């Protein structure tokens, strides 16, 4: 009789629990369904391998070793304990354990797992509340899960232990902990032990169900959403933006101005976020006192989606509904123009003028001053995002009340956040969608950005210099052969010089060096001269898809006219755009970055770096070359091939290399908030005491150049393109033309 009641009670409780859990999950699923249809490619094989690597391999999580190992323990521990939980429930109902072969070992595995998880939980608590990692939130909410897991573990152990007492089982070396607990309770009478056992069993079940109900309503929803998100992630080239269809007569709005304007995959991202803050930790904007924090970008939009979704579907996201709090989240404080780094001016000047401590030779080393700090931005985000009485959900605007324009225009599109994200979220495309709305629908662009785009529209370059002067750089080439496509129609490589390489005085020297090397190696190349136009990276990253597509079509037409089959460029932005984004508009050509071609030419022996260049060089990775296209080694190979060069790596290099601050159109905007990104990056470079900061991008070169000037070390520390260093080694530095 008791058995039956027990069983019925179990059925009711578990049935209700599962029903409620299904409800909270389904409601969030319904909110995601408000988004536009997502176009997913079918690459199943790639999806599975990525899934294995990132879900079971936990690859991204291990980028932070300490937190990563903790997570691996919890991840696998939880999977193992699920079987144990089934066993406990089954045994409590039926009276026998699950028919698992080698049950002893199964028991042992459970207890060992608990032994691993408990310290991992304590460590998680330590990292959040004692070590106080800046990227982690520290409210009471964040500690809930720690208590959940702790009491869950406790209930598991107590159930197991009391079970032994009740059944009078002997101490077993396969169940060391529960045996110990059993010993502690050995004085209990049989009925009492049985009663305690059932209490512990029920506590275990209830905690388990409560935990499962809590999960979808919190950031721990990632237990379910993160693996799905990783499986459904975009398999296109990294950071590739969606094409917009301007011929579609039915689309009345472009870009995203409402949360429903995002596609379902983008909305799934929001619920996959676990608020680990690794994105913000690496973000060049967050680290230098801009208001943008990629984690808060996601969490704010998630909160907004939940509130908007609840309003649209009339289904509350919360079970149990603790309070009928109808208030909604908004940004309650406008960002300050000087950013979150309130002593910004002071910090910048002090940092810039403080002379670097000098060590051996002319190398400059820096003291332990703060180079980047995410704390002011994290603090501003936490402070400004909250519930308000003043607005109803219908009046909460995605742009302005959820994400401010200041945040939208702080992103350098460097993708460091995406590279970090353990759940495969994409932040940059969301920011671009917001920019697209602002630019295309409202014509709202920071003034200097508007001017740059207008200049590109009119003259094909961001300064608005005459497009008939584009090929003027060729006049300074001395005696060097620079054939145009008309003069040399049978060229192998089209050298796409780009706006920077054509007009910018500093970048023109890189063009010069590269052409010297091309001639030396006997590469059959040609340039477009005045027929070249801006690639369109600036307008595309700034959200002006309309202008980008015009440029893209014009450039492709020119390429077709001259039968271009291979393109080489010294600009990573152009390289990325041509290689990954032009093909969707019809470009069929092999695209190389100049460091890839130069590496090849050195390897083939067509370029001989014979003159030693005695420099301590640190290489600054360009985002669009590195993180976007995984070209990390070629520039380094070139430097390593040069005798005398001592290559040193910065603390943040390769995938973790910090942006110079110029990407995403930021090259053309005034950077008024916080500390300048290029100053911070120059400081990171100077920290390894180089004589030369090498780069492979005209924007990076400009930014690092300015950075060393701000530090007043431009005499001691040179900034050069990899091609320029190679020229010194191939021709010797006394050669004319240098």
């Amino acid at each position, binding site marked *: 009789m008791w058995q039956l009641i027990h069983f019925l009670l179990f059925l009711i409780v578990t049935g209700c629990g599962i029903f409620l859990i299904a409800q909270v999950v389904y409601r969030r699923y319904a909110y995601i369904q408000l988004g536009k249809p997502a176009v997913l490619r079918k690459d199943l094989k790639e999806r599975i391998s990525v899934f294995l690597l990132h879900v079971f391999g936990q690859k991204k999580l291990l980028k932070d070793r300490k937190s990563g190992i903790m997570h691996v323990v919890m991840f696998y521990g939880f999977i193992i304990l699920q079987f144990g939980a089934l066993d406990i429930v089954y045994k409590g109902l039926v009276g026998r354990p699950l028919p698992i072969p080698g049950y002893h070992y199964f028991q042992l595995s459970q207890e060992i797992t608990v032994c691993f998880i408990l310290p991992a939980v304590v460590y998680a608590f330590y990292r959040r509340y004692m070590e106080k990692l800046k990227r982690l939130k520290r409210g009471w909410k964040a500690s809930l899960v720690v208590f959940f897991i702790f009491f869950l573990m406790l209930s598991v152990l107590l159930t197991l232990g009391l079970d032994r007492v009740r059944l009078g089982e002997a101490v077993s070396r396969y169940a060391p902990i529960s045996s110990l607990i059993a010993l502690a309770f050995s004085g209990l009478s049989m009925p009492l032990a049985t009663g305690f056992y059932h209490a512990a069993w029920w506590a275990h079940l209830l905690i388990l169900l409560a935990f499962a109900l809590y999960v979808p309503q919190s950031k721990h929803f990632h237990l379910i959403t993160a693996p799905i998100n990783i499986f459904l992630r975009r398999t296109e080239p990294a950071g590739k933006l969606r094409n917009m269809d301007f011929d579609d007569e039915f689309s009345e709005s472009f870009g995203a101005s409402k949360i429903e304007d995002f596609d379902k995959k983008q909305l799934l991202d929001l619920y996959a976020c676990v608020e680990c803050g690794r994105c913000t930790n690496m973000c060049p904007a967050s680290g230098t006192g801009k208001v943008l924090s990629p984690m808060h970008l996601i969490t704010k939009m998630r909160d907004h989606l939940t509130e908007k979704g609840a309003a649209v579907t009339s289904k509350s996201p919360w079970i149990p509904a603790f309070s009928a709090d109808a208030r909604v989240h908004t940004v309650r404080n406008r960002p300050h123009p000087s950013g979150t780094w309130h002593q910004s001016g002071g910090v910048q000047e002090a940092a810039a003028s403080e002379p670097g401590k000098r060590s051996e030779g002319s190398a400059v080393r820096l003291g332990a001053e703060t180079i980047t700090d995410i704390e002011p931005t994290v603090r501003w985000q936490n402070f400004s995002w909250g519930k308000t009485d003043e607005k109803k959900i219908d009046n909460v605007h995605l742009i302005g009340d959820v994400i401010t324009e200041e945040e939208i225009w702080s992103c350098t599109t460097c993708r460091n956040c995406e590279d970090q994200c353990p759940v495969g979220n994409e932040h940059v495309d969301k920011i671009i969608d917001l920019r697209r709305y602002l630019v295309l629908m409202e*014509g709202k662009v920071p003034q200097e950005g508007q001017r740059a785009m207008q200049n590109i529209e009119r003259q094909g370059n961001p300064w608005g210099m005459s497009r008939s002067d584009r090929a003027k750089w060729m006049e300074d080439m001395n005696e060097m052969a620079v054939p145009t496509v008309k003069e040399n129609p049978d060229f192998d490589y089209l050298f796409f010089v780009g706006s920077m390489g054509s007009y910018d005085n500093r970048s023109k020297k890189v063009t010069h060096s590269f052409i010297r090397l091309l001639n030396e190696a006997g590469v059959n190349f040609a340039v477009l001269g005045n027929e070249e136009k801006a690639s369109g990276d600036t307008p595309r990253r700034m959200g002006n898809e309309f202008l980008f597509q015009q440029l893209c079509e014009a450039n492709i037409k020119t390429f077709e006219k001259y039968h271009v089959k291979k393109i080489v460029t010294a600009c990573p932005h152009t390289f990325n755009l041509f290689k990954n984004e032009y093909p969707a508009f019809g470009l069929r050509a092999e695209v190389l970055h100049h460091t890839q071609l130069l590496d090849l030419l050195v390897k083939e022996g067509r370029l001989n770096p014979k003159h030693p260049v005695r420099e301590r060089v640190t290489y600054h990775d360009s985002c669009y070359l590195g993180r976007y296209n995984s070209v990390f080694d070629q520039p380094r190979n070139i430097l390593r091939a040069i005798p005398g060069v001592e290559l040193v790596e910065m603390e943040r290099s390769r995938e973790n290399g910090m942006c110079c601050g110029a990407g995403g159109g930021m090259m053309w905007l005034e950077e008024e908030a916080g500390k300048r990104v290029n100053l911070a990056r120059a400081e990171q470079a100077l920290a390894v005491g180089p004589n030369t900061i090498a780069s492979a991008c005209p924007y990076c070169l400009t930014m690092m150049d300015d950075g060393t000037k701000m530090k007043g070390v431009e005499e001691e520390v040179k900034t050069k393109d990899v091609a320029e260093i190679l020229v010194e080694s191939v021709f010797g530095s006394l050669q004319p033309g240098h």
Partner: protein
Amino acid sequence: MKIWVCIKQTFDTEEKIVIENGKVDEKDAEFIINPYDEYAIEEALQLRDELGGEVTVITVGPDRAENALRTALAMGADKAALIQDPSLVGDECVLARMLAEAIRREGFDLILGGNFAVDSGSGQVAIRLAEELDIPHIGSVTGLNVNGRQAIAKRDAEGDTEAVESTLPVLITAQQGLNEPRYPSLPGIMRAKRKPLERLSAQDLGLSDSLKTKTLIIEEYLPPEKEAGKILEGDLDQQVQELVEALCGKGLSFN
């Protein structure tokens, strides 16, 4: 309120000027709205949004000038008028007469224009227009406030700022600093294609023989090629000596 903006389509400021057969060659040139006129358009749009009414942009020019009008419509102007007649090759005097005729027929409260045209450097048309219409004008304005029938303008007076008051109707010319012109939005560009654009000929305006240009262009030529600069070297005395010689050699005297 009826607001008119007189605009001119000019060469892009970075365009290379080429003289062909004694005339400026327009082939392959990129055309823009005269930048000062953009300030005028922006100001008109802001005033309309604040006070109501409609904004009409008007220009005199060849076919290609329609693009400039469409851009102004894309920025948000309500309608446009293009005065175009092969018989009308006008100077500032003629242009002002034609504009006056077109604007008078429709009525006006406020007329805006650019301070001057960046191609010819002319700053007369708007002011002559005010004379033709017999209304006051305030030139080179960097701040404008319209209150009821009263306009208060801040004008750039050779480095100082003057505040000038006038009743409407008044003509205002825009100086840099008045505002930041907006970037046309995509829906704006789409809508601009369908907004009304009236084409007027001299006959439509009832003008023809009475219009005579008051100026005559004798020759069009490029400015002489700039000579290379020179950095003086040596000690101070030597440099002064060299400078004096160079200046005297150029036929300058210091009397």
